[in-house]
């Protein structure tokens, strides 16, 4: 569904991604793991259109979307939940959600909203409160909910575990993996926290200094002790 071919991205002289190729199939979670500074966020931001690649291509349903604007890419069906709490504290919970997918029909948005509230009941309870009143885990749910409101075929999650308690992380990730299975969503999950990510993912990809050093079934990567020592630090 989402295919990346030979992608390279630089910030000035810093080469953040070098010739990265990978595929994100529908209906399951693909995890990209790697240490801090490996280039994971750069990969996600480039897919979403926030950074322009130096070379390489991004294909979505066989359509070349390389270098597209974020607001166009999200309309095609790729939604990014960026790193950090990507909610807007000045808006209410429901306004944060309604921000996603404004171009869609009223009916589509209504359906999505109902679905988000059923996935994350706490958001429904707090719909009229300011987003700044939410806890960290609730905000992450809100951020994912906002992305789901755009009706995506591919969901990009950049370190959703950041700063959250392990139990909440597990809950959220299981939910996402369930969603992928149920609705054929393609999920690209980026994590520094490799163990958790590999538990829910089908495929694992290890990124180091902007290059893919290993990819394969998540189970195998989780077992590979050498890899863990060399790149994941545990």
């Amino acid at each position, binding site marked *: 569904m989402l295919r990346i071919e030979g992608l390279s991205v630089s910030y000035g002289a810093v080469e953040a991604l070098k010739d990265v190729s990978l595929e994100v199939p529908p209906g399951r979670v693909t995890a990209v793991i790697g240490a801090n500074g490996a280039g994971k966020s750069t990969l996600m931001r480039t897919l979403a259109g926030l950074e322009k690649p130096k070379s390489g291509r991004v294909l979505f349903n066989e359509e070349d979307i390389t270098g597209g604007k974020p607001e166009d890419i*999200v309309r095609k069906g790729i939604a990014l939940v960026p790193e950090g709490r990507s909610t807007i504290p000045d*808006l209410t919970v429901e306004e944060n959600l309604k921000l*996603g997918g404004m171009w869609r029909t009223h009916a589509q948005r209504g359906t999505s909203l109902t679905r988000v509230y059923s996935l994350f009941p706490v958001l429904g309870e707090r719909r009229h409160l300011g987003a700044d009143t939410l806890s960290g885990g609730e905000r992450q749910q809100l951020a994912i909910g*906002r992305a789901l409101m755009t009706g995506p075929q591919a969901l990009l999650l950049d370190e959703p575990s950041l700063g959250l308690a392990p139990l909440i992380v597990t809950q959220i990730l299981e939910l996402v993996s369930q969603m992928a299975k149920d609705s054929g969503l393609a999920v690209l999950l980026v994590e520094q926290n490799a163990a958790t990510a590999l538990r829910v993912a089908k495929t694992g990809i290890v990124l180091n200094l902007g290059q893919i050093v290993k990819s394969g079934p998540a189970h195998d990567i989780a077992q590979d002790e050498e890899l863990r020592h060399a790149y994941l630090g545990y």
Partner: protein
Amino acid sequence: MIDFIDYLLGGVSSGAIIALMALALVLVWRSTRVVNFAQIGQAMFTTYVALTIRELTGSWFLALIVAMAAGLVLGVLVHFLVIRPVKRLDTSGAIIATFGVLIALEALAAMVWGGDPEAFPPPIENAGYELFGRIWPFSPYDLLVLVSVVILVLALSVVFTRTNVGLAMRASAFNPEVARLSGVRVNRMLVLGWAIAGLVGAVAGVLVAPLSTLSPTSFDIFLVFAFTAAVIGGLDSLVGAVAFGIGTGLVIALVSGYSDSSNAPLVALALLILNLLFKPEGVFSHHKARAV
């Protein structure tokens, strides 16, 4: 005591107009992080347009509508021709550019309409109401100003809080990246912010003209008042701009009443300095963005 009430009443309509002008500054600031010092020049220019329309047709209302349209167009033009190209450079460049626009607009107005002050008579009676055997410093025209401002502010608040476009504009102001990732065409929202600001400023200009005179530079002082109000309100806050716009107008009216109207700019300056010294982030702002 009756003086106090008189002075306050006398400040209501100018406070309401300052609120509009401050609102225009805030709208632009929220959309592009630029204080549009040319805003008052745009308002002055569209008020001259209104004067011309009024002289041609005799209709104040038509003049107001045309001025609003002109303000909208002018706001969009300034945004496209000046701010968008310059914004990527430095902030001081953007500030200087808005002053360049101000200078050019004031000169252009003087070239087209002449530099001498023109009378812009109120469309209705501007003598105070008589009630309880005395004349109050609040006239039918003051009432018209107040009603116009209230209608405009209410309309804006409905747009901002109840519509998708308003939500998109607010989101674009608070976090453009998240807005774009949500599918909002943020650039269009910026243009819209400039357009609405231009419109609001145009209304302020037409309303204020009968209270002062109309000359290319006669509104300059309102820029200082409006900037003061907007900054005290937090520069980000629409509510703050309105509240402190009216507040600034009232304080100025009181001080002018008890001393002399030539003190008004000094009062505004003092308010601004006090605010910047003691509450630099503004009263309604969410951000602590002002320090070096």
